[in-house]
């Protein structure tokens, strides 16, 4: 057996036999001098190394060095002496052998590497659990422990879990791995919780599929999050105190985008870009965000006209998916223009209106408060078709006789909290834009998106929820 293997073997056995709340020590003579390593287990069995470096080992008086500097650090159990250099103080080592009666090993690898290797391979001595919030019926939140690893689990052990991250404060979502002690105190007393590790990061609100991997006792990797977790040095109890009693439903927002796709590709591109920017801005505000996308074009009012009906392309979906759909709409338009050019068939587009009234009807038929605080943003230019002939504008009526005034009234009665925003091109025409831009309206060319989003309540102060949420909505 080599010296390295002998040291590994001795350290492994020593760690296995090490009781909770106990320590053993190892002396290393290396290139940088002497060091005394203390390997301890805490009350929950988590091993941790620390060391004291002794610089300037004197060659002249080894006895003074041993008794004055080294020996006071060796209280308790000394497991072994490791020599990782050839130029070690032989007299001091001889004294150690005689006074402490410990084995001395020569090894090539630095002792630190060997200790880390042994600790990493050490099995758990207790359950590891993740601290989560459980969403009960209604909006009430309760603190709960979600099982991660059992005792005897070793490095590489995994656990899969699904949870939701809500908006947070600047500390982000906290991933607190805890264990608990049962049977202590009175029988009815709740188990005492002990923090193993606290990590945190500001994570975009949303639902995540995450794999927890045991890296070593005392450290868990959470894979599947969009950002890297950092060690959080706050006390667990301080964090627990920030948990809100209940989750306010209003904290989530449902952004419904109505997008006019008629006309030339360039204005459409601009509308798509602005809606993307709005989604990003709203999301950066920290609110949980669901996004819907309803597109609409023109009615076919004459022979060879194109009917471009109001369509729901995405409903209460993630912002990521909604943005993908927006890009698809833009690409489809480019394809359509190309096909028209190649076909050379005269298609007549009615340029005076778009079926905005049908888009409002589509939204009215689907929108509820279930998916969060509703916000309706329309990016377009043309007025809607009237329900019947309009003597003033002479715009051809909607083929389905949809009356936009009725549809909007119904929406406002059904959802009084609904906010309206309009992103408009130059010279928007029609009374409807006054209603659709009631809370915020912006020029597509120069809109200040953070202000626009704020006016719609998409950047209101959020309720911070410190832990991942599991339960009715999360899993």
């Amino acid at each position: 057996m080599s010296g390295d293997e002998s040291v590994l073997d001795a350290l492994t056995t020593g760690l296995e036999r090490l009781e909770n709340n106990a320590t053993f020590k190892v002396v290393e003579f290396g290139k940088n001098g002497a060091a005394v390593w203390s390997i301890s287990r805490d009350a929950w069995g988590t091993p941790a190394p620390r060391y004291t470096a002794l610089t300037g080992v004197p060659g002249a008086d080894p006895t003074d060095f041993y008794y004055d500097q080294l020996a006071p650090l060796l209280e308790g159990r000394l497991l072994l002496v490791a020599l990782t250099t050839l130029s070690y103080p032989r007299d001091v080592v001889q004294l150690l052998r005689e006074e402490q009666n410990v084995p001395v090993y020569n090894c090539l690898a630095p002792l630190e590497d060997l200790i880390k290797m042994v600790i990493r391979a050490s099995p758990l001595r207790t359950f590891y659990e993740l601290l989560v919030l459980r969403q009960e019926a209604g909006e009430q939140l309760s603190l709960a422990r979600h099982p991660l690893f059992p005792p005897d689990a070793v490095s590489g052990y995994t656990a899969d879990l699904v949870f939701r991250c809500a908006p947070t404060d600047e500390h982000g979502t906290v991933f607190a791995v805890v264990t608990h002690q049962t049977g202590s105190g009175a029988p009815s007393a709740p188990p005492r919780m002990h923090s193993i590790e606290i990590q945190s990061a500001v994570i975009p609100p949303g639902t995540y599929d995450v794999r927890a991997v045991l890296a070593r006792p005392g450290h868990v990797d959470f894979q599947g999050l969009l950002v890297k977790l950092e060690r959080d040095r706050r006390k667990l109890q301080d964090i627990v105190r920030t948990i809100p009693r209940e989750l306010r439903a209003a904290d989530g927002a449902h952004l419904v985008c109505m997008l006019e796709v008629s006309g030339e590709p360039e204005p459409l591109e601009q509308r798509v870009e602005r809606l993307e920017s709005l989604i990003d801005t709203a999301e950066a505000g920290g609110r949980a965000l669901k996004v819907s996308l309803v597109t609409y074009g023109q009615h076919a009012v004459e022979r060879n006209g194109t009917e471009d009906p109001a369509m729901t392309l995405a409903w209460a979906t993630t912002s990521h998916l909604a943005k993908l759909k927006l890009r698809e709409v833009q690409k489809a338009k480019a394809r359509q223009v190309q096909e028209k050019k190649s076909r050379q068939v005269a298609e007549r587009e009615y340029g005076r209106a778009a079926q905005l009234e049908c888009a409002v009807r589509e939204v009215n038929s689907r929108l509820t408060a279930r998916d969060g605080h509703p916000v309706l943003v329309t990016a377009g230019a043309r007025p809607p078709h009237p329900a019947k002939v309009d003597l003033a504008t002479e715009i051809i009526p909607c083929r389905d006789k949809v009356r936009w005034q009725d549809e909007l009234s119904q929406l406002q009665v059904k959802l009084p909290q609904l906010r309206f925003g309009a992103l408009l091109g130059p010279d928007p025409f029609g009374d409807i834009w006054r209603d659709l831009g009631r809370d915020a309206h912006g020029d597509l060319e120069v809109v200040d998106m953070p202000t626009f989003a704020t006016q719609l309540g998409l950047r209101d102060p959020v309720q911070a929820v410190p832990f991942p949420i599991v339960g009715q909505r999360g899993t």
Partner: protein
Amino acid sequence: MWGAPGTGKTTFLGVLDIALNRRDYGLTMTGANDASVNVLIEMTETINDDREFPPATDSIDTFKWDLFTVQPPQSSTQPAKITLKLTDPSGELMKNTRRSDPNRKKLIDEIVDSAGILFMFDPIREFERGDAFSTTNGLLKQLMGAYSLNGQNTFTGRLPHYVAVCITKFDEPRILETARALNILRRDPKDPHGLPFVHNNDAPRLLDSLAQVSGSGDGGMTVNALKTHFYPQRVEYFVTSAVGFYVDPRTKKFDIDDPQNLVKDKAGMANSARIRGPVRPINIVEPVMWLSDCIAQSRPQM
């Protein structure tokens, strides 16, 4: 044909053949010479196939078209062949600033030689510009002068023509709405589309009502000028539309909430409008037939 610029004189002629094919009038039609045949074909194609309007007339177009009766004549006075010599002048010629224009003189000669006049009154133009009286009165005076100067001692101060007054653009929503408000809209129960029309007896009421909203306030004078310068019994009123109303291809029915058969790029821009659906002319053949009947009856029997 008599009417201010843009009142639809050329379009009226352009849809004549379409009107004959929409309904069984017992008539067929062709040009009496190559030029007239070609014009007939081109106008019909422009309106029916391209769904566009024929270009405005520059000076004076004269068409000679023959209408043939393909059913046995209903009365002994009705001819088996009606030859229409139609003079379509540019509306610009009606303006008083053109009263010394050689073409204006030619137009007056044509009218003097005519037995019948198709007088086009465009209520939309009258509402927006109100120039019907100014374009009518000067021409009337010149026409009266021509009769007087020709030494026709029999001239009594009224012109001898038969006049079919065509109140055009019945398909325009504002005209339709006025007729509806006057409660003079009728429907033929046999018409599968249920298209509305205004009976000739009610047409003067519509004309009076529309003349009251003349942009210049002179619309009433136009109506009075027609009544006083021609023999009242020789004037008949027709509410007409060249393109007719839109019929929803899904329901095949006329819908009073969606009547427009013109697609305009801007409100009121009828000149740049496209025709939306099939052309179903209203009261286009009838004025011509009425004039033809009147003229035929007024001539001494051979």
